[in-house]
């Protein structure tokens, strides 16, 4: 499963980072960095919560 960020929507609010910090991190400039492009084992539920929790609906999964 690949994680896709829509850069036109993301504003770096960081909710994804707080829900799945092993995958998402907002950098110093406020841009979202994917620490990995695919969902690490055991984190799917967290990643799905992060996707649901994104206020700008900028995240999705692609299989």
């Amino acid at each position: 499963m690949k994680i896709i960020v829509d850069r036109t929507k993301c504003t770096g609010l960081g909710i994804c980072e707080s829900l799945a910090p092993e995958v998402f991190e907002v950098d110093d400039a406020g841009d979202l960095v994917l620490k990995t492009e695919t969902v690490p084992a055991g984190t799917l539920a967290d990643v799905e919560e992060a996707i649901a929790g994104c206020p700008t609906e900028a995240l999705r999964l692609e299989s």
Partner: protein
Amino acid sequence: MGPGHLVVVGASLAGLRAVEAARKDGFDGRITLVGAERHLPYDRPPLSKEFLDATGEQGTMPAFRTEEVLRADLGVELLLGTPATFLDTRNRAVGVGGQSIGYDALVIATGSTARQLPGMRGLDGVHTLRTVDDAVAVRRALDTGARTVVIGAGFIGAETAAAARKRGLDVVVVEAQPTPLVRAVGETMGGALASLHLRHGTDLRCGVSVTALEGEGRIERVRLSDGTALDADLVVVGAGAVPATDWLEGSGLTLDNGVVCDETLFTGAEGVYAAGDVARWHNPLFDRPMRLEHWTSAAEQGALAARNALNPAAARGYSTVPYFWSDQYDTRIQFVGIPEADEISVVDGDIERDHRGVALYRAGDRLVGALAVNRPTEIMKYRGLITRGASWADALTFAQTRRKARETAHA
């Protein structure tokens, strides 16, 4: 629960998330979504931010879903522009537009309404900023170059002032408290953030209150307690919000600054749960009742309230570290946790001088809050620490590590 009728009262973020969660979990019964506004569910945070920056008719309503998605894909019956008028828990019914609608499970998500000021009704040019209709009216006034007075230096007020300044308009912000944002971030940091207004040419007047709104049918001036009269074409009232519980009077639910709920958002009436701004629930993480007016908690509570209402036997508690953000001028302000603290320590940067830095909030020996100003990479790390119940000492050590790493990176 097998097929039945889920009624969700309140068609904003929490209500939308309630119906979406129900369908996601496979609920195939009937769902009715009741909204006081005539609009489809839309996103409120942009209304005081980028929505105000658009001019004329550009900048559309930030609707979450199309009507087709709601009706066809999610199978939701929409009753919009029809506020609920009563709740009868004994007969399990909600009053909407003169009829009584039965429910098997009910989610109350009626949100909050902007607090009005005495004398503002009947005066054109005076607005609160809560709904998209409010935002359209405020934007139209800004389009005409209105001399703007903002009452209340909270987030709505500050964001509105920033939008007016961005257009080069004169803005006065009047705040009754000695510093802005006291309830949100505490007095010390509220004072530090006041400098943002000064830097951007907003005339901030703290410690004065409004004594009268004057004009013949339309606002002409605002009178203050220090005797000043401010000429104005537009007045935006950002005086906070009150939970929308009027329709629940006499329902038997406990109303006390919101609908009082337990950890699972259960109201005490069978099948009835509450979510979002209207819900005052027990947050186990801080072991206290809370009512939040934040995007994140509205979204999360909406989904959980529906799940718990449909399957009470497996109801889960809602535990969260509150999070909110605000964009003012070119500054992003983020806060996690709670601002009531025994001590506040700036651990990175200088918030007042540079509008950049991190402040930590201590209660007892625990980290309970963190404020980040233009430090977007820091904030969620502290949310993690608060969630894990980190001690103050651990938080300070962590902050030192972060600061050193930053200095090394910039060396």
